């Protein structure tokens, strides 16, 4: 069974110090520059003043750093922080400035969270449906109630 999630986060181990691409230094400098104590305070305030701490491990991509926030009541959040921009292959290709791009991302997350698809029944069916080859579903078009479904979570971040 594969190990997934925060358990396999590697901090900045993906990058090689002195590789010449600047990625290790960018990640390390950025991590060191963050005021993590202030972040913990903000997170606690945003979650009804429940105390929290940060995970030891974090994950790095080309554009973001993510770290877990662990609350005393068992709630788990992640904080995602935008890394400084880079040129070349790892440059962001969006023209909109970072602040507005983040606003778009938050708005999109809120939209997807609070506006389910047109049909609530469809939403549940599509999240759990099993693929039926075309030859079979054409015949069963009038028998949607008999379509095989299997369980599966549907949770968008």
């Amino acid at each position, binding site marked *: 069974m594969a190990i997934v999630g925060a358990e396999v986060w590697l901090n900045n181990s993906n990058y090689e110090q002195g590789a010449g691409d600047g990625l290790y230094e960018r990640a390390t400098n950025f991590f060191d520059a963050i005021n993590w104590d202030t972040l913990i305070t903000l997170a606690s305030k945003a979650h009804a003043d429940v105390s929290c701490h940060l995970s030891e491990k974090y994950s790095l991509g080309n554009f973001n750093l993510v770290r877990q926030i662990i609350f005393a009541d068992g709630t788990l959040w992640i904080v995602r922080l935008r890394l400084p921009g880079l040129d070349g292959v790892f440059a962001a290709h969006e023209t909109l400035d970072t602040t507005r791009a983040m606003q778009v991302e938050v*708005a999109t997350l809120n939209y997807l969270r609070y506006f389910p698809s047109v049909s609530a029944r469809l939403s549940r069916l599509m999240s759990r449906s099993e693929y039926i080859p075309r030859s079979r579903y054409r015949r069963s078009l009038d028998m949607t109630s008999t379509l095989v479904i299997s369980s599966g979570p549907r949770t968008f971040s």
Partner: protein
Amino acid sequence: MSYIHGTVARKLRTTEQGRAGLFGTVSQDRRFRQQMANIQVQLALHTFDRIGSIYQDGDSFTIGPEVETGLGPFDNSAQYWKALVRHLLKEAEAEAGPEVCESPSFKVPYMFADLMQLCGGYVASGPFSLVNRDFGAHNLLVNDEYEIVGLIDVDGVLAAPKEMVARFPDLTGLQRETPGHVETENPWAMERIRKTAPQLDEYQNMVDYAVTQALAEESNWRKVWHIRDMASLMTSDTGSVLQGLTSFAFHQKFVNDRWMDGYEYLRRKKQNQK
């Protein structure tokens, strides 16, 4: 935001080093792709009257400037295509090497508008469906059985023209060949094409299935009618024309060369049909 216990699908596949090109076992892979198709169709059910990215003002959501071009919102597809072409050219001039910029195939974006018009797909008004232009295994969180549990990096979501909505997730290896191209020299490429062709066909069927379900389930057909052609659009000529434009963003001369040939093939094909 809430923590979702999962790993990016592409990363998990690399870590597990399973059967080449599959996400888990054969059945897990098929279920993963079906869930991708479901998500793609589910997003497309949401429509707006303009093209652009989503913005929030209190409890209401509107369409505003699009993240990639920084422009918009756009009232029709022609305005968006024009902005996208300009953006891709500007980016290429700034970042691509001289072998790309000085090659005849740098003309591909300049050919886009006329060819799209020839194929009947340049100017269109709404409604415009939501799509994630960066949709793929690099933005999907899965559990250890490759069931999709989360979608990340949603700044690629926009209300877009139908050709963009009906794209294969080509960043997940589902990439169509250029029109008219028949590979006869590179054995690796021939093997890749041989393996990809049935996957493309199957994914298209999965989208068709999800659309069929949507049409069957919704009592008010007007709410879902706009997606009825989604599956067939995925292999349309206008879809190919768009693929050529988006491939230009990779800044690779051999890719642009291939698409210039593809564009010429489509142009001759359409003109012969007249």
